[in-house]
């Protein structure tokens, strides 16, 4: 499976709708301090189902909603959308593949996952634009191998963690490979 693009809208410093298309190979993101690069990493974690505000540098989850700046008013909702194309080998591997809601204008080998959070605290998960539960999203990711493994996302400044960890806390390395 491949990620086609990620879209941020009202998520952290991305007040306006922003799309990043991901192609094959290496996508490099650059920019000055504080411009929003690590916020994009947070967006990936969040749309992939992250439940802990601390993992996104916050104390409360509503801190991911654009809170305003000297040039913008705050937003009422944060939304991140992930467009994924599923390649044929995937569907033959997963005989019990998640039954995706059929959507007339989307090919069945393409999936759009979205997560929303409103100021009210209400949150929404969508699969091909239909509301669903977090569980459905997580199952889809498990099937497609997109569940966040410990070594898939390396946060800024946390590269030394594995060396400083206690030996027992490094077990995930063999457990995830097994």
């Amino acid at each position: 499976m491949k990620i086609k693009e990620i879209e941020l809208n009202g998520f952290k410093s991305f007040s306006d709708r922003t799309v990043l298309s991901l192609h094959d190979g290496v996508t490099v993101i650059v920019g000055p301090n504080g411009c929003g690069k690590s916020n994009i990493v947070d967006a990936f974690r969040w749309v992939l189902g992250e439940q802990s505000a601390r993992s996104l540098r916050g104390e409360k989850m509503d801190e991911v909603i654009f809170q305003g700046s000297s040039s913008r008013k705050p937003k009422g909702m944060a939304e991140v959308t992930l467009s994924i194309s599923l390649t044929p080998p995937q569907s033959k591997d997963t005989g019990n593949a998640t039954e995706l809601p059929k959507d007339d204008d989307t090919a069945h080998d393409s999936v759009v996952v979205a997560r929303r959070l409103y100021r009210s605290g209400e949150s929404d998960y969508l699969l091909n634009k239909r509301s669903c539960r977090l569980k459905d999203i997580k199952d889809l990711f498990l099937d497609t191998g997109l569940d966040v493994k410990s070594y898939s996302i390396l946060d800024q400044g946390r590269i030394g963690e594995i060396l400083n960890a206690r030996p027992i806390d490094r077990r995930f390395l063999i457990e995830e490979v097994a």
Partner: protein
Amino acid sequence: TRRKLREAYDALRAKFAEVFTTLFGGGRADVVLTDEENVLEAGLDIIAQPPGKKLQNINLLSGGEKALTSLSLLFAGFLLKPSPLCILDEADATLDESNTTRFAQMIRELARDTQFVVITHNRTTMEAADNLYGITMEEPGASKTISLQMSEIEAIGVA
């Protein structure tokens, strides 16, 4: 299961030793169960000896050596069980020129089977990009994304 873990452990040791030597241009490393008999519960010790140096406590390594050792271990896991996506946020921050070059080379190899998203301030890493995006905040506090060519990176205030 015990056997699956044992196989994973053996594979990880071999792959880690290999990746470490590639990234360091030499030296040797190993990852070892704190109790060889107990693959189900024992912890993992990391042994790392950069080229030309004597084997010592891993804490005595330099900042850059520690980063490169961690990356070797993570990439080893990655090679054994690839993920569709890998995101690295300034993983090269403490690496010098030659280590960054080997790091960038390894990313390009791993990127054949995986989509990599790499955040960096380092020019050598930028040059390894298939696609380059710049994030800007022309309007204070509001992030925007622009597609870039290597020749344009000066303009947006990076390295």
